[in-house]
């Protein structure tokens, strides 16, 4: 059977599409899915994969005293985790950062610390310079209903002597 001419086919496709309830919502949702993270478009991937383990990060000085990150650098801790993961993805050459080597993790951590220090609030610059800065990771795992934690040091900037 010969194919109908294209304009007719398009007209039929449009007539069919117009039957779809909430067509605008459906098309825009698909557009947002397709664009992924392309500001202002987003597919809002936060918490879309609930793995049994997560990691988060915090900062201390070289003596182990916790540094309030947002107060010192203006960036939230979740912002730091995203920055570290982006740098890690670039260093490990892909989006899958789970297989990154310890060297790559340390390097990504070092780059993140350097970025933070560059954006340190003026009043805390001396404090960071003289006391140093360390980036720590806490890894939590939900194993059969039990929550296990593990801490590790990722990177550090030593105090200026």
């Amino acid at each position, binding site marked *: 059977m010969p194919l109908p001419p294209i304009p007719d086919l398009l007209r039929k496709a449009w007539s069919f599409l117009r*039957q779809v*309830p*909430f067509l*605008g*919502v*459906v098309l*825009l*949702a698909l*557009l*947002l*899915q397709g664009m992924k*993270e*392309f*500001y*202002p*478009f*987003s*597919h*809002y*991937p*936060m*918490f*879309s*994969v*609930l*793995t*049994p*383990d*997560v*990691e*988060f*990060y*915090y*900062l201390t000085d070289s003596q182990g005293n*916790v540094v*309030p*990150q*947002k*107060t010192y650098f*203006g*960036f*939230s*801790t*979740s*912002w730091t*985790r*995203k*920055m570290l993961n*982006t*740098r890690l993805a*670039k260093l490990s050459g892909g989006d899958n950062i789970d297989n990154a080597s310890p060297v790559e993790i340390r390097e990504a951590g070092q780059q993140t610390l350097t*970025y933070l220090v560059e*954006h340190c609030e003026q009043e805390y610059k001396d404090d960071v310079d003289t006391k140093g800065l360390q980036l720590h990771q*806490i890894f*939590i*795992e*939900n194993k059969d*209903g*039990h*929550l296990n934690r593990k801490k590790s040091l990722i990177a550090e900037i030593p105090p200026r002597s």
Partner: protein
Amino acid sequence: MKNLLQKLTRFRDIIIPFASWEMLIMRFLCSLLFFDALPDGVEFSTMPYPNGIGKWVDVTFLAAPGVWDTLKWLTIPFLILYTLGRFSLPALAYLTLLLVAYGTLRNSQGAIGHNTQLVALVLLAQWGMCLWESIRGARKGRWSWTDDLSRQRMMIHAARVMIAATYLTTAISKIDRSNGHWLWDTPNLSVQIIKTQSNDYYNDLEHVSPVLMDTLPNAMADHPWITRILFSPGLLLELFFFLALVGRGWSLGLGLAMIVLHQLIARLMSLEFPNHEILLWIFFVNVPFWLYLIGSRIARLGRPTPPTTEQPSVAGV
């Protein structure tokens, strides 16, 4: 199949015939939200990880001395024009481009945030609809820089559709990226709650909640079925929020439900989306209309009132 399709098509979104005063209030509130979404200054002067249009356009010029202040204050006349429904096409183009440029710069630092996207998308949707309606008018020989009632309604409808699509895509992401296991995996939210609460604490060393950092996550991990049952309404609400487009009553009910969901997430996980909540208040809950409705019903109880020149439609109530 055809029968099912026919049934579904009866359940479409409608263009709610908002009154002009309702839409004036919506646009005014939307303007305030937009101005509030713009920062006082631009703290980023580089784009180490370009995102969006930043891959082709260097938007670091925003950080040059004096540029941001000038561009930000220039928004005021454009916001006034948009609010009044005059010259919306150039006004929305300027406002959208400015927010997109700033958001692009901020999201080009290697960390993607999600606080201002919806505001920019709502502006973009209104601008797109304004352009579409203007072109349609021009083809009929009726080009106008003033938004008539019909164009205003279509622009508000576009904003509402964009918000609904955003929630739908959020639900699709959860289902797609988890391979359909999202609800099954909700007991793992226990570790996510510890993460977000800890993040909150390490930000300023002030907010600490033993219940949220310890007691609740352990209980969730310990009782997976209760957790799944408790969290399933959230996903369903995101998935079917587009039904809020059916009418005013649906908008009110689902809009309030979504705000409650945002508040619960804010309390549980310290994840706040104030811009999303405000947009829901403006475009879905629409308090002025319900106050008007209650007021007019109360007034009618006392005495019969003659019809006014323009009354908002109660379609869908």
